[in-house]
């Protein structure tokens, strides 16, 4: 008797990065995860900086700040800002969708079919546009405020 094999759909760590034949939102999900982990890494450094180095008094704080004002750290800081803006706005989009907004009403499956899931795409594009605008605003401030 022929044995039916279950479909091998366990991807492991590959599934973190491989999105297969999926659309834009699936890649935004990967980006959401990458920015989340990046912000977590920053958070650990930031908490270290604002506790261990802050409680030791003015001299240690000013030495730390002079190190952190070096251009490479400023570029890293800008990347963290963009990651936060993206993660926040994409997260708000995900919360709204999880609660059933932005997707239109479900429609009965009568020909010609109207895919209510596709109604979320304009909101996705709008979200990306707002991220780009805010990234430019923060870029202006990083340049105007000096690197």
């Amino acid at each position: 008797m022929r044995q039916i094999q279950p479909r091998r759909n366990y991807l492991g760590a590959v599934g973190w990065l491989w999105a297969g034949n999926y659309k834009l939102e699936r890649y935004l999900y990967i980006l959401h995860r990458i920015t989340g982990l990046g912000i977590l890494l920053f958070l650990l450094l930031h908490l270290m900086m604002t506790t261990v180095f802050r409680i030791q008094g003015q001299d240690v704080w000013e030495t730390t700040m002079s190190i952190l004002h070096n251009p490479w750290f400023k570029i890293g800081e800008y990347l963290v800002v963009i990651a936060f803006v993206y993660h926040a706005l994409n997260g708000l989009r995900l919360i709204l969708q999880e609660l059933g907004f932005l997707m239109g009403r479900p429609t009965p499956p009568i020909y010609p079919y109207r895919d209510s899931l596709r109604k979320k795409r304009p909101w996705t594009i709008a979200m990306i546009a707002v991220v780009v605008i805010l990234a430019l605003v923060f870029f202006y401030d990083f340049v105007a405020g000096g690197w």
Partner: protein
Amino acid sequence: MRNTYLWFLQLVTGILIAVLLGVHMVLMHLDAILGFFGVYVNDVTSWGSMIERSRQGIWAGLYIALLAVVLYHALNGLRNVILELTPSARTERVVTWAIVAFGIVAFVWCSYVPIALLSA
């Protein structure tokens, strides 16, 4: 069922962070644009500005609240990423308790410092 509540808290803390960290980001980074709108913040990373904020209870309270929601959101998110690898039940317990222990230690230490600096 337990994970459902954890996920719901993830959504709630996400919204709280968007507000609190939004204020933090605008204050820390948008000094040129705030100046355009007539709000002047002096150099926020200088010792004088920092210690002046540290002495005010409202800032300490805001930052401790932000710390609590951020730590929850970050560590629960990390736990979700790790558990997506579907490890064994034992590994899942180890990961969960390691993350809970780290979160408690980080919260206690990082909220002790602003409280200690209130009288700096």
